[in-house]
């Protein structure tokens, strides 16, 4: 809606009070309808995904994995908002093992080590990829981290280098 002024005034002519009032009333009506639009925008914006909340990556390999371990530096803490959903993504280039029949379980856990997602990768020729989980954790400070666990008898390595980064990413995906 565009603002239009109903009356124009001319030099040497008496101004009619009703016309003056009508002009001001038009401005008031227009401005107040715009204010309602602004309020709608506020609530619409609040519904949208907010995107990246945290991201860290590593470019160094981590070996000697024979039990469940944290993947070094792949931990994130952020402030979650009530009712909103968050996607946590972990990515590793490849897990390899000294024993070809081993599997590596690649997990996302909370800060206390409680698992919230897991993916298994066969180590024979080396495998990696994505694990991800969508959570609604409630308001407050939240920590998520990546862990790896050998399933088998060998020694597992999480492989990474400068052009094969491994990472954890947290995104706000909306309400």
């Amino acid at each position, binding site marked *: 809606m565009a603002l239009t002024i109903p009356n124009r005034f001319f030099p040497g002519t008496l101004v009619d009070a009703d016309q003056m009032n009508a002009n001001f009333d038009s401005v008031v009506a227009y401005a107040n309808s715009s204010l309602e639009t602004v309020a709608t925008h506020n609530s619409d914006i609040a519904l949208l995904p907010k995107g990246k909340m945290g991201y860290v990556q590593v470019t160094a390999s981590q070996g000697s994995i024979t039990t469940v371990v944290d993947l070094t530096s792949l931990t994130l803490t952020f402030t979650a908002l009530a009712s909103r959903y968050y996607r946590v993504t972990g990515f590793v280039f*490849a897990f390899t093992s000294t024993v070809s029949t081993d599997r590596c379980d690649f997990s996302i856990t909370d800060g206390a080590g409680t698992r919230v997602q897991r993916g298994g990768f066969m180590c024979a020729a080396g495998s990696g990829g994505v694990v991800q989980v969508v959570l609604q954790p409630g308001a407050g400070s939240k920590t998520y981290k990546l862990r790896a666990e050998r399933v088998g008898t060998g020694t597992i390595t999480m492989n990474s280098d400068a052009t094969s980064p491994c990472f954890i990413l947290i995104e706000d995906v909306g309400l």
Partner: protein
Amino acid sequence: MALTITNKFSFNTVTDADKVNTDFADIATYLNASIDTGTTHNSDVALLPKGRMAYKQATVFQGGIDTEVDVDGLSITFTALANRYYRITGFTTLVAESVVGIRVDLKITDGSNTQLARVGMDCGTAGAGVGVEATVQLITQPGAGSKTYKLRALRAGAAGTLALNDADSAPGFILAEDIGL
């Protein structure tokens, strides 16, 4: 905040200029506050993720891979903005054509074939139908300007050949998303 006007004018009464000025001041105060709110909205919206920047998919079988090659058709170019983060995702299905023990390294590279990320995936049993899938992701803050990313595949592990088993019902793809600041 709602706009209200202080003074009304009456028929056949000499209008006090100060009252007219006050009414215009009411309007100016209101509009200036509203414009400030609009500016805040603009910056709030600018913080949000913009989503898909570019996407291409492949539905054609690509076999005989025994060295590093471009994945046919999976190259994208978009204009990146300063300071923003982008997620590049590559996905394909794979099958070992000849021997057991083949691994694919599915790579994200820039337009000059410089590797930026890769994922390894054991292709499993040779000739085993659909085989396996590989997903590679890169989170990057590349700076402003035109950026090209593409998928490349390298046969690793055992000697032999592998195939990208993309089809109409199993498309491979590359996707670039703006994920915010």
